[in-house]
């Protein structure tokens, strides 16, 4: 056959593999379903108003949306150049060196665990009143939390991820319900006329602004996930960037709109007081006044499924992080193995044990599930993710500065520089206002302990990496490669002699 014939014939392999590839809508759905909007709108926003007492939340979502869109330019550009593109620490390892990478990995583990465990408080606090209202049973928050925990633990080990179609359906219904609530709230403003007070830029020049910005970052956690699908997307150069920008834009608009609508419906002067009093029930009560009980029941049910979906999603993210680190031998190799179900079970079980210990500790100490568990661990975890995003942004800048590449100056220098500056400002403000973020006294120990814990684990990670460098150079060499680091072979020095296997396969 002639050469031209060879090159024009369709490839059976490419046709088969391509039929399985993901387009933009699919990647957006996978990315957004980890963001679970109702959890943020009903849980994070109301608790945020209640704890910080500041009106600027809608603007904070817009601002952080812009910063993260800017960050994403360098992020998706770098994703094309590295392995394990779904995990922030891989970017840090490639850009800032392996010790920084391991430090970032440990920060990520702490942050994602905090985010996941915090949700047990949210579901306990949210489901308790509903069970009473629907079935007349009165249970403690931690009983609900333990039931949710058992479900997540079992699903994690059995590898029954919530089906993609179910997640998509939940996501779309959640967004629909939130939009219906928003319309109802905006059509029935407190005092009879629409107010734009919460959108005034002045709200961002208040002493607690850092708290708002950190809170807004929490709403976006999960937007980075699109990069996981680099190799499975139809056109990695287009699909992943478009899906990432789309997710960031959708999240920013949806949350800004919802939190603004909330201030309109309660009246800007009342939203803080009412959030403190009604907690997560606020948006359901506001909607119930105009839409009737059925819509509220649907909203309530979706709120619970939304929290559950978020828990499962963060649980799996954490377990896979541990799996990748186990493959790299940064964590013990056992983490890099799977059960017969294909689940990264050691990581999954470890995460579940952490959850159980925290739930039991809170139950025995009698601490508040909503503010002290959900909100503190949630914002703490969100702050950790903010640190990771900032470090990743710096890593992208350094990564492109140090090598030949074909990315534009905008993607490799300008956008990452602007994003890094903006993120450093956000981190600084968030750190300065950490007491406001938690709603504790400025001299509270927690105010230092939570940000400090990230510093401690980061330093621990760096030390671990430096120890590996001298004790185990083969392992050190594969840090940041994720699954490609493999469990054993890649860490095995190639045999010096051809050995007794030279007889097969040729050399």
């Amino acid at each position, binding site marked *: 056959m002639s050469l031209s014939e060879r090159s024009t014939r369709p490839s059976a392999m490419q046709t088969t593999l391509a039929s399985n590839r993901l387009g933009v809508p699919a990647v957006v759905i996978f990315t957004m379903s980890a963001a679970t909007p109702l959890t943020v709108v009903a849980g994070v926003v109301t608790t945020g108003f209640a704890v910080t007492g500041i009106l600027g939340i809608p603007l904070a979502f817009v601002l952080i949306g812009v910063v993260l869109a800017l960050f994403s330019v360098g992020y998706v550009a770098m994703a094309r150049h590295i392995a394990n593109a779904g995990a922030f620490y891989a970017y840090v390892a490639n850009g800032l060196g392996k010790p920084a990478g391991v430090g970032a990995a440990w920060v990520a583990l702490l942050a994602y665990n905090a985010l996941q465990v915090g949700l047990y408080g949210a579901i306990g606090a949210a489901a308790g009143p509903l069970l009473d209202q629907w079935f007349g049973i009165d249970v403690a928050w931690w009983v609900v939390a333990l039931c949710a925990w058992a479900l997540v633990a079992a699903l994690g080990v059995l590898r029954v991820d919530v089906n993609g179609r179910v997640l998509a359906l939940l996501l779309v219904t959640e967004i629909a319900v939130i939009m219906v609530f928003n319309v109802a709230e905006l059509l029935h403003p407190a005092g009879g006329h629409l107010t734009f007070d919460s959108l005034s830029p002045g709200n961002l020049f208040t002493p607690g602004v850092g708290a708002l910005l950190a809170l807004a970052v929490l709403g976006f956690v999960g937007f980075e996930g699109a990069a996981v699908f680099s190799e499975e997307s139809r056109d990695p150069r287009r699909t992943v960037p478009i899906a990432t920008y789309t997710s960031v834009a959708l999240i920013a608009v949806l949350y800004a709109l919802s939190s603004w609508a909330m201030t309109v419906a309660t009246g800007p002067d009342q939203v803080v007081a009412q959030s403190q009093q009604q907690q997560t029930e606020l948006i359901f009560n506001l909607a119930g006044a105009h839409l009737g009980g059925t819509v509220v029941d649907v909203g309530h049910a979706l709120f619970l499924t939304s929290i559950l979906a978020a828990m499962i999603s963060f649980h799996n993210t954490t377990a896979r992080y541990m799996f990748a680190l186990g493959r790299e031998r940064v964590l013990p190799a056992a983490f890099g193995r799977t059960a017969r179900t294909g689940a990264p079970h050691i990581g999954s079980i470890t995460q579940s044990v952490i959850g159980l210990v925290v739930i039991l500790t809170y139950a025995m100490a009698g601490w508040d599930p909503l503010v002290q568990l959900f909100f503190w661990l949630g914002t703490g975890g969100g702050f950790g993710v903010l640190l990771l995003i900032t470090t990743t942004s710096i890593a992208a800048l350094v990564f492109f500065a140090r090598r030949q590449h074909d990315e534009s100056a905008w993607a490799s220098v300008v956008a990452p520089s602007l994003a890094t500056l903006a993120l450093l400002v956000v981190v600084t403000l968030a750190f300065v206002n950490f007491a406001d973020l938690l709603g504790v006294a400025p001299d509270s120990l927690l105010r230092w302990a939570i940000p400090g814990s990230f510093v401690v684990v980061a330093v621990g990670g760096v030390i671990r990496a430096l120890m590996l460098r001298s004790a185990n150079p083969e392992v050190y060499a594969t840090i940041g490669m994720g699954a490609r680091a493999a469990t054993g072979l890649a860490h095995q020095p*190639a045999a010096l002699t051809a050995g007794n296997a030279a007889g097969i396969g040729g050399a």
Partner: protein
Amino acid sequence: MPLADEFFLLAHNSTGKPRLSLSSLSLGLAAALLAELILERRIALAGSELRVVDDIPPADALAHTVLNQIMTEPSSHPVRSWLDYLGKDARERVGQRLERAGLVRREASRRPWGKSVRYEPTDVNRTAANWARLSTMLRRAEPMHPLDILLSGLALVSGLDGYLLEDGRGPAHRYMLQIVSTLPPQLRELLNQTEAAVGDAVLSYRT
């Protein structure tokens, strides 16, 4: 017995259910099919690209069709793509070859949540003896035939090493790693690529 058949039997229990997740099993079997052709010197790895070096049909029918598949592609592909592609129906195809040889019986059962296929070994003692032979050699750190080393390598990268050695990370495991690393470079590369594919399948798992 062809390499993929050996690996197939090792990777299924006495009732014919896989000992591995389906994705790991598929990738392991795809790697075994490619390894058969490398051993027959029909294909070779140049870096991570897979190339045909000799188009004389192999005697085995399955090896022949796999070689045909590779030859009819208009261009060469990375071995990683071949693992994904061949993995899609590797269990079915290797299962068929074993069924023709009278070594397994295919049992399909429909359940409310989906179809499950078992490949029950016709001679359980024989498969158990294969396991015991390989396991003993590894645990006693005996010199091994290259084909057994390759089989051990496939078990290692697909996650069957725990089943094979039963003792986790002891000296037998170190011996396994060491002896597998004596394989020629292109077989080591094939195993590395398989191991990476197995890990990536866990990280990007979705329903």
